[in-house]
């Protein structure tokens, strides 16, 4: 390519209007982009609002079985929550509870009843007696519903749906006992066995849900052609496991200039003073230091 003439180039640059137009164009693009994001956000939020309003009345049949939901209810539930963030899901649970319903969308039973109407409740758990918000205690009609509900929650995307790339996200799985009744293509999870959970705390529920999710991720890894057990291409553990909190041993000090007076600067190699040079210097100084301390002690009071 022949070298471009400087004159010609500067002539273009001096031609202000097209350049300004280009800048304006970029600004316009940015503005349009922001407007689109805002528009998208409004649409998604309205969508979620409508979904919460619909799902707070679920299931459609008053005699539905939370462990064996009807295929249409399960399908609608899974579809609707894909756009949810975990906080939206919490909001759905809250709305169901306000309406006196069990927090799990596919359960028709009323929410739990705490022993008393006090705001804080004492609860017997495996870790001894704990104080729990009444609200939390009354969220579910049973531990089983808590487990099934949390299984859905851990699959939700933390990122707002209007910022997600492409589709809203992946399919949401449910824990059901009647997988055979649901359409074959639906990735519904058949619960292996009903584990007796006499005194489940919420943490244990969450742990169970996480474990279930890990299984699901393993399936996903195989589907992606990754070897089970190996590190996944999208493995979060790679980072989270290795985080170590930095512990401060002493209060932070502002950086100070290397002491010019020490007379070591001529020994420094790119700011570093070799050990041998340092030792020699310290031996020389030690007498002076003793003197200083003595002088200090001599002060009255």
């Amino acid at each position, binding site marked *: 390519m022949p070298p471009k003439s400087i004159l010609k180039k500067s002539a273009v640059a001096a031609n202000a209007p097209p350049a300004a137009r280009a800048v304006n164009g970029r600004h316009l693009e940015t503005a349009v982009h922001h407007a689109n994001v805002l528009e998208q956000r409004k649409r998604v*939020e309205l969508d979620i*609002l409508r979904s919460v309003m619909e799902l707070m009345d679920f299931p459609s049949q008053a005699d539905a079985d939370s462990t064996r939901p009807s295929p249409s209810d399960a399908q609608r539930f899974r579809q609707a929550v894909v756009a949810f963030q975990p906080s939206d899901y919490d909001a759905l649970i809250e*709305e169901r509870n*306000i309406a006196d319903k069990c927090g799990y969308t596919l359960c028709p039973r009323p929410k739990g009843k705490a022993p008393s109407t006090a705001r804080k409740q004492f609860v017997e758990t495996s870790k001894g007696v704990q104080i729990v918000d009444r609200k939390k205690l009354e969220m579910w009609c049973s531990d089983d519903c808590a487990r099934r509900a949390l299984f859905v929650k851990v699959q939700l995307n933390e990122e707002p749906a209007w910022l997600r790339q492409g589709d809203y996200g992946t399919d949401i799985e449910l824990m059901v006992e009647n997988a055979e009744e649901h359409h074959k293509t639906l990735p519904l999870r058949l619960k292996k066995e009903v584990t007796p959970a006499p005194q489940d705390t919420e943490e244990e529920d969450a742990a169970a849900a996480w474990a279930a999710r890990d299984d699901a991720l393993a399936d996903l890894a195989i589907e992606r052609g990754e070897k089970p057990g190996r590190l996944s291409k999208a493995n979060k553990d790679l980072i989270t496991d290795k985080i170590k909190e930095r512990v401060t041993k002493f209060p932070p000090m502002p950086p100070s200039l290397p002491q010019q007076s020490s007379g070591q600067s001529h020994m420094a190699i790119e700011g570093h003073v070799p050990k041998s040079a340092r030792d020699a210097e310290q031996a020389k100084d030690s007498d002076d230091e003793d003197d200083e301390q003595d002088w200090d002690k001599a002060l009255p009071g």
Partner: protein
Amino acid sequence: MAESDPKARQELLDMWRIYRTTKEMCRDRGYNVLPEECDIKFDDFSRKFGTESGMINRGQMNFSAIPSEDMVRKYTPPATAKTPAPEAQIGTLWVEFNGDEAFGMKHLRDFITHLTTGSYYSGIMIVVKPLSGMAMRALRGAAQLGNGPNGGVEVFLEQDLKINITKHELVPTHLLLSAEEKQQLLKRYRLKETQLPRIQVTDPVAKYYGLRRGQVVKIIRKSETAGRYASYRWAI
């Protein structure tokens, strides 16, 4: 009435104040409210709205209010060639007091259903605790959801109505201009509405008067030097 427990009595007292402020608010907006409703004595109030045991019965306090002729005039858009007889954008108001510990979408939906089936133009709900997050979102997005009464739904916290903020000496008189008065004002001063100073519809005084976006209020201040002077604000 026997000696009731202090807590119930305090609640009854609070609700008496809240009731009076609510009635005053309706009066100040231009609804027909009788003076004795705003000035109801505590004894009369507790007889009317208290239970045998001295507890408040909020359900009894609900009421409706009809706009005065002057209010209807203010809320009627100017006649044009296309609509020679425009309809007033105001109508019967329904005011409800809800004592539930949590107010969610279910309550909001029930309230809206009540308003639409009762053909109310607008509704005011007075609640104990702030709405749930979703109910708040639903309230804000009510227009997009496409249901509910024409005049919308407003929600107040009991706490905010214990005293009437407009009775405070530092709060000047706010007067709503009719659409016609607004046009005259802009014409006289050769202004566009966007050039007026603004008042947010979420401002407590704006909320008290139920200002809607686009309306203009005349604010009359007392001044030691100038006597009285008026300014205008555009609600956004």
